[in-house]
Each structure stands twice: as structure tokens, then as C-alpha cells.
């Protein structure tokens, strides 16, 4: 069989189909992903398994190659778009079946900063990993962050800054959370071009995330810790 042979997704067994979906996500093929999701559902896969085993599994590969400098922003955006196609089918079904939530994140660029490409990428990759993301946009004051945490009840707060002059504002937000006694209710992740790990530690964030792929890995890691703590508590 040559490479040019057309692939009939419905003819593949489950394992082959999932592998093919990994490739299709990687290549940003939205229609093929939607078809794959529908086939798995018709084979009585539960929606949560389609999400985690096929879609999130595929996006994990995309994320790793983005982190390693194999894929760049355009390819990741296409993959995230394909993922979104699949998610649109799954979302109502996940709600109906009461599937466990992977996690919820409130994310926004800090006050004074109007840059958002990096933040948008993190949002998309987080959605790609199955997280629910509430995007507050740019130029967010401490009040806006607090209000969103109150109303949305996220597990994670993500803050982004692209300017050396705005990154210290992250500390203002974290300090206010400490004052109000809510700091430990949330996982606080920070990122942005001029930041580094040292800075993240200095301002009291839980972690600095170098890029969107690292943000996803870090978020998963901290969610797992949170669940473990909840169990042992």
C-alpha cells in the first residue's frame, strides 16, 4: 500500500484510529478529527475517554514538540483548531455524562500590559489538554482577577506579562490574595517572555511556565497534587 492511498477512518480498528487521530491533530486536520470523534462515539466510547485518550493524547504530542522547538506557533494553532472541532462535539456530552473535570483556569494579561499572543496560546493549549479556560483578556487589575476567581471558581490562576515594567504587577495580585487569605485556594501560574523561574519564586507564584506546553504540563502536575492532597486530607 502506498502512502497516497486514501485512509477510511471507519475501517480502522480503535487502536489504529486513535493513532491516526494523533497524526491528524498534529497536522491540524479539523474535519478528520471531528469524524474520528464521531466514529469513536458510535463505537460506544464514553465521551470522557474520547477526550482524554484520543484528543488530549494527541495534543500532548503537539505540546511536547512545541516545547522542543519542532513545532512552532502556526502549527500549534492549527492543531488547537482541530482539537476545538472535536471538543465542540464532546462538550455537551461530557456535561450530560457528568464526566470529571480536568481543571478550570482563569487567565489574563496583567494591568498595564496589552500583549496577548502568548496568553492566547496558553489558553488554547490548556483547552487542548481538556481544561476549561476563562480568558479575562488584557490589562487586568487585581480587582478583576479577584472577581473572576470569586465568580468562576477556578482551580488555577494564570497571569501573563510581556513587559519588564508590568511583570511586577503579578506580585501585587498575589500579595492581595495572601492578604485576603485566599492564596492557597488556587494554583498560581505565571508566564511571559521577560519572566524566569527566579522571578516566579520571588513573587510567590507556584510555578513559572516557560511556554504554553510547559504551562499545560505544570497545570496537570499541580492538579494531580491538589487531588492527592484532597484525598489525604
Amino acid at each position, binding site marked *: 500500500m502506498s502512502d497516497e492511498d486514501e485512509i477510511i477512518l471507519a475501517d480502522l480498528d480503535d487502536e489504529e484510529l486513535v493513532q491516526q487521530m494523533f497524526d*491528524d491533530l498534529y497536522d491540524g486536520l479539523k474535519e478528520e478529527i471531528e469524524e474520528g470523534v464521531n466514529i469513536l462515539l458510535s463505537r460506544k466510547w464514553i465521551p470522557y475517554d474520547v477526550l482524554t485518550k484520543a484528543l488530549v493524547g494527541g495534543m500532548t504530542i503537539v505540546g511536547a514538540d512545541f516545547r522542543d522547538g*519542532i513545532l512552532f506557533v502556526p502549527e500549534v494553532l492549527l492543531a488547537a483548531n482541530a482539537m476545538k472541532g472535536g471538543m465542540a462535539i464532546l462538550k455537551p456530552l461530557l456535561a450530560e455524562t457528568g464526566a470529571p473535570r480536568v481543571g478550570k483556569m482563569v487567565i489574563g494579561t496583567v494591568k498595564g500590559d*496589552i500583549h496577548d*499572543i502568548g496568553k492566547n496560546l496558553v489558553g488554547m493549549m490548556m483547552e487542548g489538554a481538556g481544561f476549561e479556560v476563562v480568558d479575562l483578556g488584557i490589562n487586568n487589575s487585581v480587582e478583576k482577577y479577584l472577581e473572576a476567581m470569586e465568580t468562576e471558581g477556578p482551580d488555577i490562576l494564570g497571569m501573563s506579562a510581556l513587559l*519588564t515594567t508590568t511583570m511586577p504587577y503579578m506580585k501585587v495580585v498575589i500579595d492581595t490574595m495572601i492578604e485576603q487569605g485566599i492564596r492557597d485556594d488556587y494554583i498560581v501560574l505565571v508566564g511571559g517572555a521577560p519572566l524566569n523561574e*527566579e522571578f516566579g519564586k520571588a513573587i510567590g507564584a507556584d510555578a513559572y511556565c516557560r511556554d504554553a506546553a510547559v504551562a499545560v504540563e505544570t497545570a496537570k502536575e499541580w492538579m494531580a497534587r491538589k487531588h492527592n492532597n484532597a484525598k489525604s486530607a
Partner: protein
Amino acid sequence: MANAFTDLLAQKGTLMADGATGTNLFNMGLMSGDAPEMWNTDEPKKIIALYKFAVDSGSDLFLTNSFGANASRLKLHGAEKRVHELSRVAAELGREVADRADRKVLVAGSVGPTGEIMEPVGPLTHALAVEMFHETADGLKAGGADIGWLETISAPEEYRAAAEGFALAGLDWCGTMSFDTAGRTMMGMTSEAMVEMVHGLDNAPMAYGANCGTGASDLLRTVLGFAAKNGQLPIIAKGNAGIPKYHEGHIHYDGTPELMGQYAVMARNCGASIIGGCCGTMPEHLVAMRAALDETPKGDAPTLEEIVEVLGPFSSASDGTDGEGPVRAPRRGRRR
């Protein structure tokens, strides 16, 4: 095609560009979140002072305060109708400073990215991007800029759109991209690929190169990548003064004036002929760069090891031009 830029470059061999705009403006009291371009009309004395920093520090050209003067960026401040005006005034103030200098100094009209992602992956169409660049370039030309200066671009599509915008405005231009992701631009373009793109443009720039990005080391690796392709056009190097560090509530860049002097000499040895700084580059850095360039004859290009020794490590092992970068794992399914 001769113009003030190519004339001065031919005469001097190497041109020193300017340093940081943002870092200097913040030091003068600009509040983060405000559009720096508003100061062209609100605080013109401060903008003149900014330009004079560069002239007094020995720069042969300086960039105008118009980096974000495009419809997409100014819209965030409700000022999208002021693109032409703010660009024009940025250049007019520059003209005033340059014409009063005791030597030839060029006014380079800064043009930054739209901040939007272009089609097919993003929403910004080619036609709209061209229109935005055209509008800014028109304003800069009306204000008397000697040349347009595109900078900090990540997407090849956006670079091409700007080339068309400059062509429509009839303004000669230079254009640099920012290589900040594993030695490539955020959108994945390598230094090699940029050389090919630039030389293939209908309205090619007078010079091309790299600005901003990660550290000075990465920037020089990019310049070596340009030089290896033996393009016809002059190369621009505008690197950051080191890496930003957080220090007890303040940010400072860790590149000393002395290091930036060494960077400037190495940039020329790597093949750049227009050399300046970017974020964090203050007047004292420029003075050191000017002195180092004037006092040191051009030498051989440094090896990657020598760059690391002087300026510190690279942010990634490969920049995608050596065939040794990471590659995709074999396909799991079949190829479509």
C-alpha cells in the same frame, strides 16, 4: 537605488543604530499600559530627549517613537484614527533632532508588528495588514523620515505585507525580525529562510536583520546564519542588553556597557554592518558600543564557542539551520 541610508552606509561602512525606546521612556515616567506614541503630541520634549540620547551617544541613525502606531495597536487605546498623525509627528520630531546634529544622522521611521496573527492561522487578512502598514508608512514619510524601519516581526506573511505597505507609500525601508523561539521567530522562521524571503521580495528592503529576541548570544548566532547565506543586502543586528532580571522590585538588564561594546564588535565580525541595541540598551551602552566600533578594526567572524565565552550561553542547542535540531517522531498512523 541610492538614498540617504545607502549613501551613509557606503560612506561609513558600518552604521551604529540606536538603543531601547521603551526602557528609556519608562525611565522618563511613561506608565506601563499607556501607548508611548501618545507622547509624540502630549510630551514632545521627552521624545526629543529620547532621540537626543541616541544622537549624543554617537548613533548614525535612530528609530522614531512609532513602533505601535498602527491601527491594530492604537485601537487598544481608542486612537486608531490617529495612526497617520502620530506617525507623522514621530518623524517630524526626529527630523528636528537629526537636522540639528553636527553630523549626518538618519531618521528611521519605526514600524512594529500589528500584534495580530495573520491568515490562514489567524484572523488578519493580507489586504488589511498591507493597508495598516501603508497608513503608518505614509505618516512617517509625511513627517520626513529618511527610511522606514520594520522591526520585531515574527511572521513571514507580516514581513511581506509590510514590504507592500512601504511600496505603496513610496518609502524605502529596512526590516528586522525577532528570533526568540529555539533560535527561530515565534512563527518558526529560521535565519536562513529569512534571507531567502527577503531577497525574493518585489520591494526588497535596503537592509534586513534581527532585533530583540532572547539575548545577545542568540542574536549573533542568527547573524552568522544570515551571513552564511551570502545574501546581497546589508545585515542589521539590534540585540537586547542582556537578559532582564528581577531585583528587589525592579527589573534590570544584565548586559553591561562593556559587554555591549564587545557585542557590537562581534556583530560586525559576524557580518552585520548596521549595529545597535534593543531592550535595555541605554545611552551608556551606546557610548561603549560607539567607542568599541571606532577603536576596533573588523576581524574574523567568531565561532559559536567564542560567542558563548564572551556573551553567555544560547537559549537552545540548535537554531534550525545546522540540521541538528530536534525532529518529529515517526508517524504513528499512515500519511494522508
